[in-house]
């Protein structure tokens, strides 16, 4: 049986605040059409990146012919700017982007969530200090902050991850604090307080489980941005990877000059990155729609 509305009136007064709290969010998200499309796109790109290195016809770094030949013999998509096999480079080059973006997302969203839980449920100066600090960070565009960081520290994979994650954290903190604040005002939190429970058990036991809806939306969104940022840093040669290592972002940079004679070396990674961002974004959007109940049929 579905939850009856609190007062009199039929169904239109379904409390929008509880819509994202009901269990089964994943199931409802799946029912939204765009989630399926998004997941299919994401899985396709992930499959290429994960399986790619095992099925690549050539090695990652070996030379197979002259540079920038579109139809070099024995290759599927020709050779790149110094004569390596484009198709093999493409198959090798996705995995670094994936794990870098995933790490950025986990660390960025995790630390943002921590700040949100602390600030959203303290009702003291701690909230002010934390949120004003995030405001300072929010004043800089993420990419500018990243470039500044990487100019100070040598670009290493871990500095790239920390840089991008540091860009996410304040943005995640903002959004999640609002979600935490909303839940913190609910009576079940007061009920826990009246039993004398301390703040951290309440944060983890009552607040965190009830902000998973917005948290999932935020994670999907941040994953999309991570892919874009990491690929962008790769394009600028700041991904911190070895110079000859295959990487989609780096590939675009290496081959952009010869785009007119050998477009494949640019197009393949561009299309893959595009599909991945669109896919993750669609999934995030699907979850958001399910959480907000936008596509919900009337309760039976």
């Amino acid at each position, binding site marked *: *049986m*579905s*939850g*009856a*509305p*609190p*007062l*009199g*009136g*039929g*169904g*239109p007064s379904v*409390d929008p605040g*509880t819509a994202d*709290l*009901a*269990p089964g969010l994943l199931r409802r998200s799946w029912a939204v059409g765009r989630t399926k499309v998004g997941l299919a796109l994401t899985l396709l790109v992930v499959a290429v990146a994960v399986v790619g290195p095992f099925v690549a016809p050539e090695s990652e770094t070996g030379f197979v012919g002259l540079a920038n030949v579109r139809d070099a013999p024995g290759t599927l998509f020709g050779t790149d700017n110094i004569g390596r096999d484009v198709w093999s480079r493409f198959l090798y080059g996705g995995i670094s982007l994936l794990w870098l973006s995933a790490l950025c997302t986990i660390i960025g969203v995790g630390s943002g969530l921590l700040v949100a839980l602390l600030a959203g449920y303290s009702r003291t100066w701690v909230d002010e200090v934390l949120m004003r600090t995030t405001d300072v960070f929010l004043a800089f565009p993420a990419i500018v902050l990243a470039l500044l960081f990487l100019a100070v520290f040598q670009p290493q994979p871990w500095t790239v991850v920390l840089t991008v994650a540091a860009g996410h954290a304040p943005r995640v903190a903002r959004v999640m604090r609002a979600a935490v604040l909303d839940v913190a005002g*609910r*009576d*079940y939190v*007061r*009920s*826990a*307080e*009246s*039993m*004398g*429970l301390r703040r951290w058990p309440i944060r983890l036991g*009552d607040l965190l*489980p*009830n902000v998973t809806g917005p948290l999932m939306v935020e994670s999907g969104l941040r994953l999309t941005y991570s892919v874009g940022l990491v690929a962008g840093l790769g394009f600028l040669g700041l991904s911190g990877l070895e110079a000859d290592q295959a990487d989609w972002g780096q590939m675009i940079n290496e081959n952009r000059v010869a785009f007119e004679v050998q477009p494949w070396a640019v197009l393949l990674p561009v299309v893959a990155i595009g599909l991945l961002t669109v896919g993750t974004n669609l999934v995030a959007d699907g979850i958001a729609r399910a959480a907000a109940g936008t596509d919900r*049929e*009337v309760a*039976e």
Partner: protein
Amino acid sequence: MREEGRPISAATDAETTGGSGGLEVRGLRVTTRTGVPVVDGVDLTVPARTVLGLVGESGSGKTTVGTALLGGTRRGLRVAAGSVLIDGTDVTRLDETQLRRWRGSRVSYVPQDPTTALDPAMRVGRQVREVLDCHDYGSGPDERAARVREAFEEVGLPGDEAFAARYPHQLSGGQQQRVCIATAFATWPSLVVLDEPTTGLDVTTQSLVLGTVRQLTQRHGCAALYISHDLAVVSEISDAVAVLYAGSVVEQAPTAELVHRPRHPYTARLVAAVPDLDGRRALRGIPGGAPSPSGRPDGCRFAPRCALVVDECTTELPALREVAQDHLARCIRSAEVTAAEVGDRRRQHAGPGDVLLSVEDLSARYGVVQVLRGLSLRVPRGACVALLGESGSGKTTLARTIAGLHTEASGTLRLGDEVLPFGAHARSRGTRAAVAYIFQNPYSSLNPRRTVGESVGRPLRVLRDVRGDELERRVGEMLERVYLPARYAGRFPDQLSGGERQRVAVARALIAEPELLVCDEITSALDVSVQANIVGLIEEFRRDLGLTLLFVTHDIALVRNVAQQVAVLQQGSIVEDASTDELFEHPSHDYTRELLETTPRLAT
């Protein structure tokens, strides 16, 4: 009457059966897209100049009926059969363009919550004017401006420019609702649908608004449908009442007849569930709950909860038939239905017990806003003390301060001999267990991500260190004591009805065996039939376990039925503190007297 003032020329090609005036609904059936009927077999007749009350509990379909009269449905629903005749025109056959002309001019709507119905960024005069402009009212701007002034005066608001220039947030809740009513009546409609228009208002304001509506239907010669879950309010305003249960009308009769000689068992039980302000009859709930649209039984839908049920009831849905003049009932045993017995007045006395809770010179504030002003209160052990006040009187703040949820306070709280510090953290584990709190809204007081068992067992785990099998056993026992099956422990709150959730909240409050239970408006979000059950449950614990109750409420009729002692709170001070009998027989404060006069009674 100014018939010539009616400017409407909503010429339609829809079927017209002659202008009889008023509303006539025949065989209305609204279903979901998959065909599950939400409302089925609704027949209503409302002649011009009369008010029909439509009473039903949550989920009975009363709002669905109300919106269908405006030619609309909620997303996912559609009108499957039936006709809605307003002045002889079938609204269900109008197309979108015709409907748009129809709504606001021939039929209008007053919503439940004026704060969301009014545009906060638009001056109120402009909002009334909007509907006139939209329907080309009268001959020109001057006539419309005059009508806006007149419409405000009709609902008892000032008709001057200064008032029309105000924004909604500059008005009180009652004034806002009167602006909505002025808008609804501005174009001289034939039918006005009012959907719980006074639910959010204080009783004194409510009685003003009811009077206004009553007067306007007379003056305008229009028909009105007044939708509410509150039979007492409906009986105050309506000429006749229709009772809706599980999507169909089960009884319709003139108001006094329906209240005093109900001919359907559901109506009879509904009347018995309304708290009697004069304390002449005991409060009784209705066992069980109303079925959801997809779970309605074959035959009479009330059969599973009915005391008069026979085999025949469960096989075929009874027809709505005339059982007396102007009195329709959908029951095959309507002759055997008896009205709620009116017995001797129940006398409510506080026992001679010692004082359990004493509040001395308590003041509380939120920031700079002083909410409680040095009040004192004593709660005898084993008694139920009601704390009566309207919204903003500070009653919830007082309850929360006692429960340790509000710390910006000064004064002394004592539980027995022990001084209670403000704030639960500062209290000993023993005192935290001794004072329990039940929240107003069971939809937000249970964590949606915890099972019922986890929520109920939590105080025992936190306050009494009970774990494992012992915890599980005691949770099961507690659920059964509040008349829920022990297997509910594995369910989540969204699988429960409002009444069941509140039972779970009661179980959670009582499992750690408190001495004092603070109930903050615990029934205001529930239907009356469920309210009576919850109140009965609490009373049972008081009697059997010697539990002491502080019962916070705004409902003076309920107070008479639950409390032995009453403290009336107004603007942060206690203005009257007396035994229940004394308060009702000899109210000493003006505010109390006003409450007693304005609170709706079932028609006499």
